[in-house]
């Protein structure tokens, strides 16, 4: 039944319900695919028995007729989500062996909808990275290669394992998290779809914190419909998260429509930046044509503070991270370095040994911008600029219903090719503004570049308007006809 691994979640769900195949067969197929794809390094831990147990429960429930929306569907879960009794490490050495005695709200919601778990997915350490190279488990290999080349490529990051798993057919859908592009950039790099909903839609409870005012969970899958199905199950009010939105979860799948008649698509002029390959701008123009074909009207808009979004992000995110990561002190959980005399030395030795270079760099920046004498000049200033970025979007959405941009300024790059931290940060130039404004945003595959690598298109919606983002994504998906899959080498 290996062909089951080529199906979408909607196809698996419908085929399971109609009795075409069993949930057990689905789980067996994906478990086998996971076991056969170790070269990708996409999973940090495999949990085939978990997927089988959920499948057997789904098969039993099918005869009784009461099925959750994800009954029979096995998923991959990013290692940032706490999973009860199963290693949860955030890709970090400092959490190696940590087994939470609780389950994150989002993964619990997925389980309650009937989903099983194939395993935990590799990621940049504490979600800090855009290439999955900062993981303590080593980099994830993208299933994609440049035409005629054997160079290993990154799947992007930080949800790199998530992206690689869907693209390689070793999970039909996965969870990701997005603080500054960590769902959308990897989705674009591997030719799949991924949506970050409005800040607060998905509970942050039980997700290892990076930058709490930005962190948001979302799904990644092959199609827009699959993302809608997953997001419906993941989202919802949670009193355990103080910033959870007390709003009903819309029926996004039922609301899908690619008819965009009367809708206005904003094209922000500030997103035409130097140094972006012509192919990416050409795809952007093609995307405008596709949305016009779907009935939408393009309008030029201005987001004047766009160029300040990345530097704003690289003050706010490290500041919040330095505070959040203070909890890793070698006392309550995680790594402890022994053989030092004092408590202070134990803290310093534990954190020196447990954190990787990028995480240390960001903690240092965050500590500096929050330190006495610099707080106002950096952190408060950044929060003021963030307010202006938010205001830019508020004004833009008076003129349009959804915004279209490229997802990333390049196609996937080679492992080890980008060594300068600043150059790495620039990967998220198009993704970060929506994060700072808390807006729903999605990447959908648009086409292949000249080297045969996927490129993504990026849709940003107004607060709470995931439906518009999904619908515009669907309109692009139907017209792009993106069916390319990586050739299996692993």
């Amino acid at each position: 039944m290996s062909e089951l691994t080529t199906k979408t979640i909607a196809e698996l769900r419908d085929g399971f319900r109609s009795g075409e195949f069993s949930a057990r067969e689905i789980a067996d197929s994906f478990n086998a695919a996971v076991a056969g794809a170790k070269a990708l390094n996409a999973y940090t831990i495999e949990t085939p028995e978990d997927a089988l147990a959920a499948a057997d429960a789904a098969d039993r429930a099918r005869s009784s007729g009461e099925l959750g929306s994800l009954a029979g569907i096995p998923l991959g879960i990013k290692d940032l989500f706490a999973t009860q009794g199963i290693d949860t490490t955030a890709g970090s050495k400092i959490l190696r062996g940590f087994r939470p005695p609780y389950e994150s709200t989002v993964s619990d919601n997925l389980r309650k909808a009937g989903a099983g778990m194939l395993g935990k997915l590799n990621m940049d350490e504490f979600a800090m990275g855009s290439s999955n190279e900062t993981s303590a488990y080593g980099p994830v290999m993208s299933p994609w290669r440049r035409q005629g080349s054997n160079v290993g490529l990154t799947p992007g990051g930080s949800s790199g394992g998530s992206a690689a798993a869907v693209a390689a057919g070793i999970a039909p859908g996965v969870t990701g998290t997005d603080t500054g592009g960590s769902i959308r950039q990897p989705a674009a790099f591997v030719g799949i779809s991924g949506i970050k909903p409005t800040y607060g839609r998905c509970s942050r409870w039980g997700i290892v914190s990076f930058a709490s005012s930005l962190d948001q969970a979302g799904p990644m899958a092959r199609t827009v419909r699959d993302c809608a199905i997953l997001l419906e199950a993941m989202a919802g009010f949670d009193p355990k998260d103080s910033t959870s939105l007390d709003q009903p979860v819309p029926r996004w799948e039922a609301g899908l429509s690619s008819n965009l008649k009367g809708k206005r698509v904003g094209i922000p002029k500030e997103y035409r930046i130097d140094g972006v390959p012509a192919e990416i701008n050409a795809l952007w123009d093609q995307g405008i044509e596709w949305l016009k074909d779907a009935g939408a009207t393009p309008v030029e808009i201005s987001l004047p503070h766009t160029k300040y979004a990345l530097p704003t992000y690289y003050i706010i995110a490290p500041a919040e991270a330095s505070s959040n990561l203070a909890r890793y002190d070698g006392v309550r959980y995680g790594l402890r370095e022994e053989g030092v005399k004092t408590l202070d030395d134990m803290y310093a030795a534990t954190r020196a040994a447990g954190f990787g270079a990028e995480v240390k760099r960001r903690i240092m920046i965050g500590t500096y911008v929050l330190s006495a004498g610099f707080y106002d000049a950096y952190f408060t200033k950044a929060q003021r600029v963030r307010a202006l970025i938010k205001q830019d979007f508020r004004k833009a959405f008076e003129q349009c219903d959804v915004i279209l941009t490229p997802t990333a300024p390049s196609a996937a790059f080679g492992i080890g090719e980008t060594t300068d931290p600043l150059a790495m940060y620039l990967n998220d130039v198009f993704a970060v503004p929506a994060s700072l404004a808390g807006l729903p945003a999605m990447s959908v595959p648009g086409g292949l570049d000249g080297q045969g690598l996927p490129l993504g298109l990026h849709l940003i919606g107004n607060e709470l308007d995931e439906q518009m983002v999904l619908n515009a994504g669907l309109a692009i998906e139907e017209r792009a006809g993106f069916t390319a899959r990586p050739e299996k080498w692993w």
Partner: protein
Amino acid sequence: MSVTSQQVRHIAKLARIGMDDAQIEALVPELNNILGWVEQLGEVNTDGVEPLTAVIDQKLRLRDDVVNDGDIRDKVFANAPDAQHGFFAVPKVIE
């Protein structure tokens, strides 16, 4: 503004990350690169702009001030590197 190796050593101490001199020296140009880049925010006129505090407008909820969980001591200690007699154990703090 740029940082000196002395400042980087101080930040490392505040952040409780052990670093030797070579690591400190390597971080000085890296941090200065990043700080130099974020300083472009100085160009933005933010006079009269309130710092953003909530990205999606909503009131923080209040709940009744009652105990709503507890009795999970063993779970709290389950992942501790060193738990003894119902306490987290750490290296000696007071002589």
